[in-house]
């Protein structure tokens, strides 16, 4: 197990493995996405209060889940990168941060589009919205730090530390924002009653969430392969692979 873990951490053996894993994740990901989209857009009934507009949650909720999930993944990779200095983990942090920032932006944008007809306004200073916005800035901070440092390994280690500190900070930000909101304006914003959701709506939602996670895995693996090739461009295994 340890041996396997260490071998996988070295770029020459990770590179082909990631290629195979990307395909393994992509096939069920695409199938689930298509089936989930069919269920979400066609077969699920319209909501009795929100009409057809509620269907945006099939994109919104998976994106919001993934935005938090990706940050936790980055924190785990940060620990691995800082302790074992594993190149694969270092590459993961920055590549995942791009996608995580994208998910956060999608979650915010779809939430705003949904909020306009449902709440009558694009933006409310609700606890969840605000902490998601701060999460976006945390992602952008990691990306900006990576861009600013020219030495790749140094940039990766700096980003690892920042991601780790940020991961400790995310729950603190979340609860403080929630507390601030309840103190100021009280629960004015109604949230979803998730347990009372119809199963014809719940299943497509879960399918979409799983599909998004699988496709995130595929895209991050492809990105990581590209980053590893670029970083290791002077090493022997890359040259040998390109020659063949």
């Amino acid at each position, binding site marked *: 197990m340890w041996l396997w873990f260490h071998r996988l951490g070295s770029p020459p053996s990770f590179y082909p493995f990631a290629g195979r894993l990307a395909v393994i994740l992509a096939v069920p990901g695409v199938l689930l996405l298509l089936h989930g989209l069919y269920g979400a857009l066609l077969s699920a009934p319209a909501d009795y209060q929100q009409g057809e507009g509620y269907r945006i949650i099939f994109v919104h909720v998976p994106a919001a889940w993934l935005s938090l999930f990706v940050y936790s993944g980055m924190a785990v990779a940060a620990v691995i990168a*800082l302790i074992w200095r594993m190149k694969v983990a270092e590459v993961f942090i920055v590549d995942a941060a791009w996608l995580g920032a994208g998910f956060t932006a999608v979650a915010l944008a779809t939430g705003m589009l949904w909020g306009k007809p449902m709440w009558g306004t694009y933006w409310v200073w609700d606890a969840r919205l605000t902490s998601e916005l701060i999460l976006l*800035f945390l992602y952008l901070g990691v990306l900006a*730090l990576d861009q600013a440092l020219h030495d790749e390994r*140094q940039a990766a280690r700096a980003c690892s530390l*920042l991601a780790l500190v940020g991961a400790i*900070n995310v729950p603190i930000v979340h609860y*403080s924002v929630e507390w601030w909101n309840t*103190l100021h304006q009280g629960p004015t914003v109604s949230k979803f009653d998730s347990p009372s959701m119809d199963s014809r709506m719940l299943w497509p939602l879960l399918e979409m969430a799983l599909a998004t996670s699988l496709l995130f895995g595929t895209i991050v693996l492809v990105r990581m392969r590209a980053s590893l090739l670029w970083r290791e461009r002077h090493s022997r295994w890359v040259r040998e692979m390109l020659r063949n």
Partner: protein
Amino acid sequence: MRALMAHVQREWQRYWGRRGDVIQAPLIFCLVCILFPLGGVPSPDHLARYAPAVIWAASLIACVFGLETLYRQELSEGWVDAMLLAPLPLPLVLLVKSLMHWLFTGLPVALLAWPLGKALYFPDAALQLLILSLLLGTPVLVLLGGIGAGLTAGMGRGGLLMSLLLIPMYVPVLIFGAGVGVAAHDGLPATAQLYLLACMLLAAIVLAPWASAAALKISAESS
């Protein structure tokens, strides 16, 4: 122990020698506070309502400006390498340095909040609590800021990036710090917020120097 005392003395001399530079952060604090009445409605009601937010936002900005001077010169002078060889553990060195930095940038801000709060028509009893919140909160800002300052110390122009990294992390301190002022202004008890700020301060004293040391080591690796 003697090494520690020597370090404290040296940091004091260093900051005292640079007092002209260091005093810029409290001046920024005053200026930002002055901008709000000029940009808004200068009626006592409005100003008093927004005074906690204004004072806390201004002290956040002043703190980020002040952090420019925390490690940049030290890294270029090779001070960090010297401290890595010193008999004191690096986190302890950085803790002393942060507290000294707070003495010259955070404490003046907390003291200046008194006349500025008056100028914003903030009621006296509430102002005392707001200043207490600044005394508890600004060291947290400096200690957390050490992490951002450490990460960007090696860059030519790291100041902008540092504010981008730090301000999202400062949100909880701002919420509870300004929350003290808001609660006191409304005549509500503010003890919960003050205890939470004190809790953050203790956590920051224990944890932040380690993260700053790690950040500074990363920056020192290549430069």
